[in-house]
């Protein structure tokens, strides 16, 4: 089981949440939004590959 992936996403989430708070408190709301967006794109790029693997496995196993 690829638990590293979950930890990677959790770490990115926590870092983004902390940066988000810091930037909002220092009055840079637009930069905070950009940070959140960047985190979202990075996590999505990691996840899309895994979801594609999952669908391929389902197709193979269930004889689609």
């Amino acid at each position, binding site marked *: *089981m*690829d*638990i590293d*992936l*979950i930890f990677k*996403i*959790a770490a*990115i*989430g*926590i870092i*983004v*949440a902390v940066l*988000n*708070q810091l930037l909002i408190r220092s009055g840079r709301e637009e930069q905070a939004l950009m940070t*959140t967006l960047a*985190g*979202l794109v990075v*996590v*999505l790029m*990691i*996840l899309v590959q*895994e*979801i594609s*693997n*999952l*669908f391929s*496995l*389902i197709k193979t*196993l*269930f*004889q*689609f």
Partner: protein
Amino acid sequence: MELIAKTAVICIVVSLTALLLQRDTPELALLLTLGAVTVVMLFALSFYEEVQAIFAAVWQQSGLDGALFAPILKIIAISLVTRLGADVCKDSGQGALASLVDMAGVFCALLTAEPLFSQALGILTQLGGWG
């Protein structure tokens, strides 16, 4: 046993982390949940071949046509994907999208089960002497 223990631990840890992330970045909390779903499902499906072998043996003993077994497998896959997709949509607060996923799943399952329906109808017609 290994599967359920690992799944339970991962789900509890991910739930806690998602709760932490929910306050500041709810979108990343949802992605974390989606990642956990993907990883655990990939792991769980690695045991599927053994389960399928048991199903196939039971099916063979029942003396039914093997071609009827394939639609059932496909419907299991459709229901798994539908359920997970709808629940992820519900978690993000999009009830309408969840209903759409459910509806698409029902249509796909009905289309996949069509050979079974027509075969059952054929048997009924023969029994009733209407054919």
